[in-house]
């Protein structure tokens, strides 16, 4: 009887220590339909990466370029990501340097970190900021200029857009 009780006790402890099965935490987020739609640029910023790394004051680190050219505001820019994978961008009078039409795709469907714009043989990759904001109609795109010989990031551009 004592033996049976001991075996039962050990079995109870062994099974009690087994990990619980992790329950499903919901459907994977499909960002592509959330990105579909027209996005208008509301802010365009330029950052000197060297100044940022050295902790220079804000005015010597980042410059708001949104309305730096009075007759060519960057707020004229908008981009439409269509659900069929095509896109069109309208520069308006702005000097925005972005492809104006073609196809768009995410670099990774599950964990996207960039949008790839393609037009023929030309490809433009723009990094994505926080995807959490996409749900509330805000999108941040980022581009970097790198030094040719070292690959070091020298200038960063940040585009803040809101959904129509």
């Amino acid at each position, binding site marked *: 009887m004592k033996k049976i009780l001991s075996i039962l006790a050990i079995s109870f402890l062994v099974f009690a220590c087994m990990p619980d099965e992790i329950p499903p935490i919901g459907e994977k987020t499909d960002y592509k339909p959330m990105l579909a739609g027209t996005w208008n640029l509301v802010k365009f910023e330029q950052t000197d990466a060297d100044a940022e790394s050295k902790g220079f004051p804000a*005015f010597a680190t980042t*410059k708001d370029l949104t309305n730096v050219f009075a007759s060519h505001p960057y707020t004229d820019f908008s981009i439409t990501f269509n659900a069929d994978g095509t896109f069109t961008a309208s520069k308006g009078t702005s000097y925005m340097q972005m492809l104006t039409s073609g196809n768009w795709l995410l670099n990774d469907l599950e964990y996207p970190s960039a949008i790839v714009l393609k037009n023929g043989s030309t490809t433009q990759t723009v990094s994505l900021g926080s995807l959490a904001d996409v749900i509330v109609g805000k999108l941040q795109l980022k581009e970097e200029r790198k030094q040719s010989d070292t690959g070091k990031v020298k200038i960063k551009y940040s585009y803040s857009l809101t959904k129509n």
Partner: protein
Amino acid sequence: MKKLIILTIIILASVGLKAQNAAPKFTVTPSDIDALTENVTIVFDVTGSAVEGVTDIYIWAWGEGLNPAEMLLCYDEGSPSWGSISKNAKLDPVAGEPNKRILKLPKTVTRAGTTVTFNNVAELFGVGDTPGKIKKFGFLLRSQDGSKQTPGDMATSVTLLPLEFEASYFRTFPAKVSNKDVVTAYLNLNLLESSEDQKLKIAGKIKASISLLTTNGTKILTTELMSTTYTAQGEYAVSFLPEKLGTFPTGTSISNVAKCQLVFSGEVYEQGGTAQLVNTKTFEFEFQQYE
């Protein structure tokens, strides 16, 4: 006729002397460095300079505003002496390039009987603990005995990126920029240099004229008198995208643009009420190659 011949001889002689004393060309890699940048390489091309043909070429370098100013490679201990340059200052040859020499960091040498490694420019000038002290250094190339040397007086110099932000008479944002980026140039008249027209201190309606140039200094296009804005930091600012600065002449494009020159102008009113235009000197910067 005799006078004319003498004059011609003098002119030819002076041109000849100048050609013999040409400043050496040099390339710094990475192209923009600060006092703490590591893995720096400087390649010197002595073609046409006074040290062309010299087997052992030495570098004599000095940091602006330092005391002692000379680079630690130039002397082993005590004080630097032009007459007894250290063997550590001898530049390394470049295989297959007889007119080229190289200085590469990190550089390990024996100095005052001790092995020392210099990892960056600050350490080369003995300010490794206070790297902000060196902002620019000049150099000349010489023979071991100093009988042959390239021009001094900052004829060849390297300007370092600042480690701390310092207000300056002229600056660009970003500090280093490619010809495809938006550039903002700033003029701080509170820091007007003594060599400038002091009337600029009281000048109004500050405008900027901007020129784009090729590598060899040929002006491609100039845009005159662009409006500036006055910033909270007391600077006059003008922003531009080089590609949109104007219409490029036929056969040229933004890809030909290597340098930029700016001149700021302001109006000063004389007693009679007439406006006089006063200009700053010409500021010049080179565009970087960014991807």
